[in-house]
Every structure is written in C-alpha cells, then in structure tokens.
C-alpha cells in the first residue's frame, strides 16, 4: 500500500482504530442482522397473509387446454421452418446470380397482351422496327412537348434547337451537294424533318 492510500485510510479511522471504510450503513443495520440471518435459515417465511390464490379462471378453461392443440403446431412449425429455409435459399441465389426485377417475372401471356414499348427492358431488346416505333411513340412526342412548353414559357429553347438543327443542315447539305440527284429532290422541309428524325434517333440511342 502506498503512502497516499495509507493517508486516506488513516483519515477514516475511528477512535478504536477499527473502522477503515469510508462507507456508512443505514441506521440499525447491524442490529437487524441477526434476525435476518435467522430468517435465512428458516425454510419458509410466513408473512401471516393468505396463501391461497385470489385469481379465478373462466369455466372449463383447463378442460379445453389439452395436449392435441400443441401437437398439431409442431408439424406446422416444421413446415414453417422448411418454407423459410427455401425462401432464404432462393433469396441468396437471387443475390448471387442476379437482381430481382418484377417485370422479368411477368408471364409470356402478360407480355404478349402488353403493347411493350413504354418501358423497354434494355437496349438489347430493341430491334430496328420496335426502336422506330418507340421513337415515334415517345421521343418525338417528347420533343413536341418540349417545343410547346418552350413556346408557352417564352424561353429560347426552341430557338436554340433551330440553330442547332441549322448547323446540322449545313453539313448535311454540303454532303448532299456531292450528289446532284439528291440535292434537286430535297427541299427545306424534307431536310428539317429528316434531321429531326436523325437527331431523335441519336439522342434516343445515347439515352438508352
């Protein structure tokens, strides 16, 4: 014991030099100790209060409480564990081999009855014909909506688009100028619609 501890212990010594603890006990603690020790030796401790149960049960409760109701649950418990195990294995496989996509689980019948182009599954599912159909149904409409909203909002989105298309026209017309047949058959509207379609397809493919 070092000097510091000795100093602390000494400070709590009483007159007899016996009490070395800094802790105190509740009043009368040691006086009741003998009684409590006797209590512990006794096998029972009667409070002098009634020991009969004050509770009652519904009539016939114990009669309906029979073993059969628990036995049937054992097999259902087994089935539950089996079902949960299969589900867990399925989820693990799914996590390893791919992601879950509800659309992929649709039956062929459901796919067949659906027009199919609103939400293509991936770019690999689009062949040339359905790609064009998709452009017609969606992207061209989107462009029109964009133009319309630009007009309504008074922004220069449309103007920007026209400028962009014009620069494309110059390139395309220059290319076309190499062929007399083409240049004579092309008027301005045809070029614009052609470019709009070209532009739309490129944009769409980028997007996809």
């Amino acid at each position, binding site marked *: 014991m070092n000097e510091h501890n000795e100093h602390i212990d000494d400070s709590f010594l009483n007159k007899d030099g016996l009490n070395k603890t800094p802790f105190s006990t509740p009043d009368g603690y040691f006086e009741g100790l003998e009684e409590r020790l006797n209590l512990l030796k006794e096998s*029972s401790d009667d409070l002098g209060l*009634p*020991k009969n149960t004050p509770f009652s*049960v519904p009539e016939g409760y114990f009669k309906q409480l*029979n073993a059969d109701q628990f036995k049937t649950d*054992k097999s259902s418990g087994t089935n539950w564990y089996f079902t949960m195990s299969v589900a867990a294995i399925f989820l693990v496989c799914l996590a390893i081999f791919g992601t879950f996509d509800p659309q992929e689980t649709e039956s062929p019948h459901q796919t067949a009855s659906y027009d199919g182009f609103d939400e293509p599954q991936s770019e690999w599912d689009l062949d040339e014909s359905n790609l064009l159909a998709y452009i017609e149904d969606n992207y061209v409409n989107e462009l029109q909506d964009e133009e319309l909203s630009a007009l309504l909002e008074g922004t220069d989105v449309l103007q920007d688009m026209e400028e962009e298309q014009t620069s494309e026209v110059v390139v395309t017309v220059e290319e076309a100028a190499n062929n007399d047949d083409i240049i004579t058959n092309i008027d301005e509207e045809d070029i614009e619609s052609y470019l709009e379609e070209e532009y739309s397809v490129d944009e769409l493919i980028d997007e996809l």
Partner: protein
Amino acid sequence: MSVDETEILSLLKSGSNDRAFTLIVEQFKEPLYWHTRRMVISHADADDVIQNTFLKVWKNLDKFSGDSKLYTWLYRIATNESINFINKRNRNLNESLSNEAIQVAGNSGGFDGDEIQLKLQRAILTLPDKQRAVFNLKYFEDKKYDEISEILDTSVGALKASYHHAVKKIKEYLENN
C-alpha cells in the same frame, strides 16, 4: 389425474413422446398455469404464456436430457416464458407491467380475493421479475430452495437473499400502503 413422473420419463425413454406429452399436459397444466398467472396476473396473458410454454415443451421434448427433474424443467420453461413475456410487454408498452397489472388485478373479473389479497398482489408486483418468481415459488408453492435453485438456475444462497429482500419489500409496502 395424477401420474408418476417416472412413468412419463419411461415413456420418453421408449420414444413414446406423444403419449408422454399428453400426460405432461394433463399433469402439469394447472400448476404451471397458476405459477404463470401469479407472474403475469391477467388470465389472457397467462393463457398466452402457457400456450407458448407447452409449445416449447412439445418442440423440445426430444432434447430433455433427464439431468434435472421433469417438473423443474417445465417450471424453468414456464418461468422464462413469463419473464420474457413481461420484458417484451414492458418494451412494447413503454411502461412497467406492474402498473397495468395492478389495475388488472383490482379491476378484472378474474380476481376473487379480498382487500388484503389485493394489497399483497400489488406488493408482489412491485418486485423485480426474478425476485417475484422466487417469492411466488417459495411463498405460494412452498418449493424448497434447492428446487427453486434448479428452476431458476441460481445458487441457493442467492435465492435466500433474494427471498429475504422480497419479504422485506413486501412488508414495507404493506406498512406504508
């Protein structure tokens, strides 16, 4: 119906679990119910706990090793189920079972005792769960300390101290209320 425990054990050893379980339920449903009822107070809760208890007994009957007495094994399951139920309920309701159960003890139709008994039950409900189990097993069921020791997996010395504290608290409650 009174069945010797050795008869049930011999059935278990011979693999007749089905018959053994039937005898267990018949023999122990009432004592286990009352033990549970004293712990959780309301009949509905005691019924839930007793259902879970027997389900667990049925599912684990194969695993009963016979190292302890059958009835201490059953009481241990019932006590643990009761304490789990109380803890779960306390967590869910964010209030102690005691507060609710005291009201149930006083108000429900399942209580036939007089005012002294009600007061005693309220005092018991102020005890911590395990202390309550010790007190109930000792005071109401007259179990010996070594039996309670097996049921609660606690040393006899700790049980004596626990019971002593329980008695002291109950006396204080009765004096002050």
